């Protein structure tokens, strides 16, 4: 007997617990198999680039916090490096080290959140997420000591950071450096040999190296496909040129590798922080930069390795106190480019695994 079938189109989102923000997917299904996908976004569009055209260079730091709200420090860092390049500002060594410390702590936070929510999407409801959030909380307390805020930090300024770390920062920092490796052991024991996790992620959502480069993916997504590309190595900024660390890469480019690369990157971040702990010099943290300043007419592009990938700022100055144009090269947006080809042919149950493994942040996609 022939049963007539036809594809069905369903809407996933915009409000869906697994999309971590307002993201909508229009999915066409043939039975359980995905035959077409159309991502729809822009629900969180706040016009950051337009707002930046009317604010001074120092004020824009606060706008960058709100782009990728789980890695504000790294957004700050990308922006201030671009402004320093545009205006030709110097940064004292201690300022650079403090930026690297804050940035790497933020990378750990971002990867912990990514790991926790990824496992939550897989059905490990609550437990691993809460473990990750417990550790995240300790790092957010460090941020509170640095600048008084936990999420929207605005810690960095063109020319350095806005204040030196207080005295009670350092013992707490040391305590995290000592305790976090044990937590990582714990979470690896909990997860890496977990059969359910392996079955649901290994070989699922493969992104080939060729496709990863063609679609200009960056960050853990690119590295999980086996390409050792990290801007901290290939184009060092701040003090990364003086630090020793490795670039973890994956072999298959599947969801498991993207998950594993993030775990391994936390370890590398800890190595970097350990070196910063011994190497950080004393001295000023910020060069003398007035609140309003006028960079010379011109343009520049500068980028850093953010937790999601290459975060770049393209600034155009017309000689005024605010940029003529401020473009953000957002890694989350561009990492979504291969989403369609990654999802086609997989089952609906794999959709959230694949999407979650990309670790996009809607605040940064929509800006």
């Amino acid at each position, binding site marked *: 007997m022939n049963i007539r079938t036809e594809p069905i189109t369903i809407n996933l989102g915009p409000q869906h617990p697994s999309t971590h923000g307002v993201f909508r997917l229009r999915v066409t299904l043939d039975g359980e198999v995905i035959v077409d996908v159309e991502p729809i976004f822009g629900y969180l569009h706040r016009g950051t*680039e*337009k707002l930046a055209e009317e604010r001074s260079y120092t004020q824009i730091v606060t706008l960058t916090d709100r782009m990728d709200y789980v890695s504000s420090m790294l957004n700050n860092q990308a922006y201030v490096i671009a402004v320093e390049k545009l205006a030709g500002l110097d940064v004292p060594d201690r300022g650079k080290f403090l930026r690297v410390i804050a940035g790497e702590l933020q990378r750990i936070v971002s990867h912990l959140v990514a790991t926790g929510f990824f496992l939550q999407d897989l059905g490990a409801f609550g437990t691993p997420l809460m473990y990750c959030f417990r550790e995240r909380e300790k790092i957010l307390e460090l941020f509170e000591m640095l600048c008084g805020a936990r999420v929207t930090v605005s810690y960095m300024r063109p020319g350095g950071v806005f204040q030196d770390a207080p005295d009670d920062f350092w013992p707490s920092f040391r305590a995290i450096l000592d305790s976090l490796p044990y937590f990582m052991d714990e979470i690896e024991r909990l997860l890496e040999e977990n059969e359910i996790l392996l079955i649901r992620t290994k070989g699922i959502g493969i992104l080939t190296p060729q496709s990863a480069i*063609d679609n*200009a993916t960056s960050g853990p997504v690119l590295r999980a496909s086996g390409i050792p590309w990290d801007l901290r190595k290939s184009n060092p900024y701040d003090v990364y040129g003086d630090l020793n660390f490795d670039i973890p890469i994956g072999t298959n480019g599947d969801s498991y590798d993207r998950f594993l690369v993030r775990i391994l990157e936390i370890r590398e971040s800890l190595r970097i922080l350990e070196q910063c702990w011994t190497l950080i010099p004393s001295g000023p943290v910020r060069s003398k930069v007035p609140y309003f300043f006028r960079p010379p007419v011109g343009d520049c*592009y500068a980028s850093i390795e953010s937790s999601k990938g290459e975060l*770049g700022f*393209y600034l155009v100055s017309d000689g005024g106190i605010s940029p003529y*144009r401020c473009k953000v090269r957002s890694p989350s*947006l*561009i990492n979504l480019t291969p989403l369609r080809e990654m999802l086609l042919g997989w089952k609906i149950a794999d959709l959230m695994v694949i999407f979650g493994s990309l670790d996009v942040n809607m605040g940064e996609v929509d800006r």
Partner: protein
Amino acid sequence: MTIALKASDVAKALRGFFTDGILRDNLDELWIDSNYLFDLCKLLKENNEFYLNYLVAITGVDYIDRFQLIYHLKSLQHNHSLVIKTELIGRDSPSISSVMNIWPAADLQEREIWDLMGIHFAGHPNLKRIMTWEGFEGHPLRRDHLGG
């Protein structure tokens, strides 16, 4: 360190294929005629010497009397980079060829520029609004949006 390719070297190598099309070669920017964009980009990607296989970003800037498009290119193999700039005169219906067939990465970025800046990319298969909704009037990143 990522080495910025000298635009004059690139221009010299490209002049073997194109006599016009290259307008200026400043120190680190290659200025090209917008009509030759697709062919030049294809050459830059396939040429073994440059092999610019990674499209970092496309940016549109509104200079009132003209639009400027900036392409940041990179080669992951050689670790070098190049900036291409091109200009579109006039505000009514600026149009340029899409580079999506060369770098699929251009997909969402070209849609974003179309949505916010109003530059049409000929040959893009799915050029729809991306940040704002269908039916939105105007292009918000233009300097004269809502009276500037």
